[in-house]
């Protein structure tokens, strides 16, 4: 019986990290194993679609990938065996007890940590995570990021070489800095989510595939580390943000601000799940950045109307976030919350103060949003001329076509 294409795709993408983990754990050579798994997934997607899914799909994939791996290793060893020698400066003594415990771990976590290795650039971490853990093809990743397939192939190949050269181990040493490495993984997942949610350039405002993939990997991370509240916070944040996706744009492709979105069309199943996650995570330990952001998103999501939003609570949560993770974007978000909670005048004086201290209106990463926010504040205070200048400045600074149209329209009407 022919499997449904989406069911087949889901099965293959779920198996991908398990198969890769099994090979790398036994044979090492992440770089070659990763290539072999992609080949096996491709072979499976063709053969299983015609012949049906075998009884033990994972064994099938492992067997086929193993053979591809042998072919690749033999070819490599035949050409430059001697050059491939590498020195173990400090051979590791493996504690049998730790090793036994580790064997029960899902290898997906090891893979996530490896793909987000500190030796790699942020762009490489993203590409490698999507391929090795997400099971996406190079072409799919290239398409999602709007770059040529060849460019993405080079990026992935270099990333794997860097991992090899760094001597990174598949399993984190017992004294390895797990919290910092998990933070790196969360950052990568959130970057993927944001790339999907707000395309940094181009016409389409959302790229559903990347958003869905980030949430899928977020679920995986939360399942792997159920006792760590921060991955739960990240998953909650992504769900609560994504619940508003279908109301973010008009049919003609214009941006709809939060206050004007049709709340009845928000995804209430996602809101329930996200709210429940953040509620459970909140009580656990020291609150960190993703939990705070999820809590903010939950306050928004659970307000029946824009007017009923508890902006005072949101302003307080942003102040907390600013302390945990100081940054221009957080400061600007607090300005917006203060505007809603306490009025435009108080918000604008906070913005001017933060600008004096941190240069928000000049910094390349914040100036666009800082101008857009000040434009809205001035508009509400009734200063049309100054507002117009700020709307124009913000419009000229954005690369997003949809947002640019919105801001130019505001400049015309202000």
């Amino acid at each position: 019986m022919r499997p449904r294409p989406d069911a087949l795709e889901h099965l293959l993408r779920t198996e991908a990290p398990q198969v890769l983990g099994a090979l790398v754990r036994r044979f090492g050579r992440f770089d070659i194993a990763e290539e072999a798994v992609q080949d096996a997934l491709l072979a499976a997607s063709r053969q299983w679609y015609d012949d049906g899914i075998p009884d033990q799909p994972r064994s099938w994939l492992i067997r086929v990938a193993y053979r591809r791996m042998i072919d690749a290793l033999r070819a490599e060893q035949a050409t430059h065996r001697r050059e491939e020698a590498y020195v173990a400066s400090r051979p590791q003594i493996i504690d049998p007890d730790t090793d036994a415990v580790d064997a029960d771990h899902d290898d997906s976590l090891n893979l996530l940590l490896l793909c987000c290795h500190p030796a790699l650039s942020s762009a490489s971490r993203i590409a490698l995570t999507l391929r090795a853990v997400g099971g996406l093809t190079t072409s799919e990743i290239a398409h999602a990021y709007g770059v040529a397939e060849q460019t993405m192939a080079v990026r992935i190949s270099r990333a794997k070489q860097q991992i090899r050269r760094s001597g990174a181990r598949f399993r984190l040493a017992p004294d390895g800095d797990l919290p910092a490495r998990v933070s790196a993984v969360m950052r990568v997942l959130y970057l993927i989510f944001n790339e999907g949610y707000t395309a940094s350039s181009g016409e389409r405002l959302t790229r559903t595939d990347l958003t869905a993939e980030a949430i899928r990997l977020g679920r995986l991370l939360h399942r792997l580390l159920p006792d760590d509240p921060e991955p739960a916070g990240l998953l909650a944040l992504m769900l609560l943000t994504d619940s508003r996706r279908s109301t973010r744009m008009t049919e003609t492709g214009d941006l709809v601000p939060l206050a004007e979105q049709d709340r009845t069309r928000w995804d209430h199943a996602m809101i329930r799940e996200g709210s429940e996650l953040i509620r459970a995570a909140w009580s656990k330990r020291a609150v960190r950045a993703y939990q705070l952001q999820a809590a903010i998103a939950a306050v928004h999501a659970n307000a029946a109307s824009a007017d009923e939003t508890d902006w005072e609570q949101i302003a307080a949560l942003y102040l907390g976030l600013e302390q945990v993770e100081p940054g221009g974007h957080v400061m600007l978000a607090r300005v917006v919350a203060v505007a809603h909670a306490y009025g435009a005048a108080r918000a604008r004086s906070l913005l001017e103060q933060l600008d004096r201290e941190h240069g928000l209106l000049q910094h390349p990463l914040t100036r666009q949003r800082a101008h857009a926010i000040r434009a809205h504040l001035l508009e509400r205070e009734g200063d049309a001329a100054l507002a117009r200048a700020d709307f124009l400045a913000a419009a000229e600074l954005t690369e997003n076509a949809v947002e640019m149209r919105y801001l130019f329209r505001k400049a015309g009407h202000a």
Partner: protein
Amino acid sequence: MKFLILSYTPTAGWDEATADSPSEEALAAFAAYQRFEAELRATGEFVTSEGLGHPAVSTTVRRSEGGVIFTDGPFAELKEVLASFAVIDVSGLDRAKDIVARMVEVLGEPMEIRPIMGDDFA
């Protein structure tokens, strides 16, 4: 006394040996071997047996002046390579030869009987 049985296969033939769809003949041979192994378990002569990964996935470790060196690949490139091993615990070499003769007859590939040096040789 214990003997290590080493089973060799031509490197060139390895891929066919691990192919997805083994021939009827190969399946029958393997089934016959498994029946024989069960017999040896019953007599208490069978200790253990395992199949090995392809030599390409082995790692060779040597000491050098710069430290311990890992090399991807087998210790020596050979035309015939170790594919599996078994350990048997039998009365002596004659019995080991009888057993391995039956294994070779069934499986077809050459095997080597290597005495495991016990306490009497320590």
